[in-house]
């Protein structure tokens, strides 16, 4: 049953690639496929996933980005994908780190054809991370900097803290 998600995600990526070939110049398509499609969709999933996560995990508010990194790697990834990425490469300021995924379940059974070498296959994950963290008032950037599908030794997601999102009080309620 663990394969259902992986296979379904594969079918979706395949379909998106197909859809784009219908009406887009192939070269243009390879660039575009990464951002407009996967990010918003992953983002939407993240926005809803965070509620599921907070309800099931009993994790409280994180006080700094290091704590956030721990929760993401050890609790959230474990809960949803059954893996625990390692956390490395902290920036001196503590506002950037990397998640190293040794075995990314999304890419089981996947081989990237040559003509899709710029496709960031697992990009959905970045959208999920961004959407989920935004709901707990953290604006972050998440992106793949290494990918085993492209021949890298490991898969690495770089996480960068941009800013804390202030609560918007309705006008006149301060």
């Amino acid at each position: 049953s663990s394969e259902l998600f992986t296979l379904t995600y594969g079918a979706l990526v395949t379909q998106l690639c197909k859809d784009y070939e219908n009406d887009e110049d192939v070269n243009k398509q390879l660039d575009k496929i990464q951002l407009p499609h996967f990010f918003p969709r992953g983002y939407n999933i993240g926005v809803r996933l965070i509620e599921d996560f907070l309800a099931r995990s009993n994790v409280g508010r994180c006080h700094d980005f290091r704590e956030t990194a721990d929760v993401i790697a050890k609790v959230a990834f474990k809960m949803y994908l059954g893996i625990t990425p390692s956390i490395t490469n902290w920036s001196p300021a503590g506002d950037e780190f990397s998640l190293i995924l040794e075995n990314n379940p999304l890419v089981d059974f996947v081989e990237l054809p040559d003509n899709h070498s710029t496709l960031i296959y697992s990009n959905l994950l970045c959208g999920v991370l961004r959407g989920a963290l935004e709901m707990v008032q953290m604006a972050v950037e998440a992106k793949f900097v290494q990918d085993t599908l492209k021949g890298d030794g490991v898969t690495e997601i770089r996480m960068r803290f941009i800013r804390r999102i202030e609560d918007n009080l309705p006008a006149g309620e301060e």
Partner: protein
Amino acid sequence: MADPALFEFLHTEMVAELWAQDPDPGPGGQKTSLLVLEGMGFRVGQALGERLPREMLAFREELDVLKFLCKDLWVAVFHKQMDSLRTNHQGTYVLQDNSFPLLVRMASGLQYLEEAPKFLAFTCGLLRGTLSTLGVKSLVTASVAALPACKFQVVIQKP
């Protein structure tokens, strides 16, 4: 292993993705979207059919294959068994799920009834794809009278 919630969220986004491409689809447009979803389900079903444990895979009869869908496939995908299986013994089967997981979060009753078909197309394909891997050609349709119960009708295509 991936948590079931992930599949549910992804499935919702897949439905939304296809509708977003064509915000105001005519009758033909919606049909195409349903076909695309069904097609994705078919591919997933095909692959699952190859991977699920099939000890008793000397299926002697058509009925065994259908039971396999109701038990093993449904448990693998939705973590529960199908609630009932009926047949007219002429190649038509009705599989009923009284609380279909992809509809459970939507409503209980008639609200959103019009939206329900989009959330069934993928699963119809899933059943058809699994059957196809098991060597059975079929047509699968779904109907909902009141959420979250739904019926999948499988019509076996005789060679």
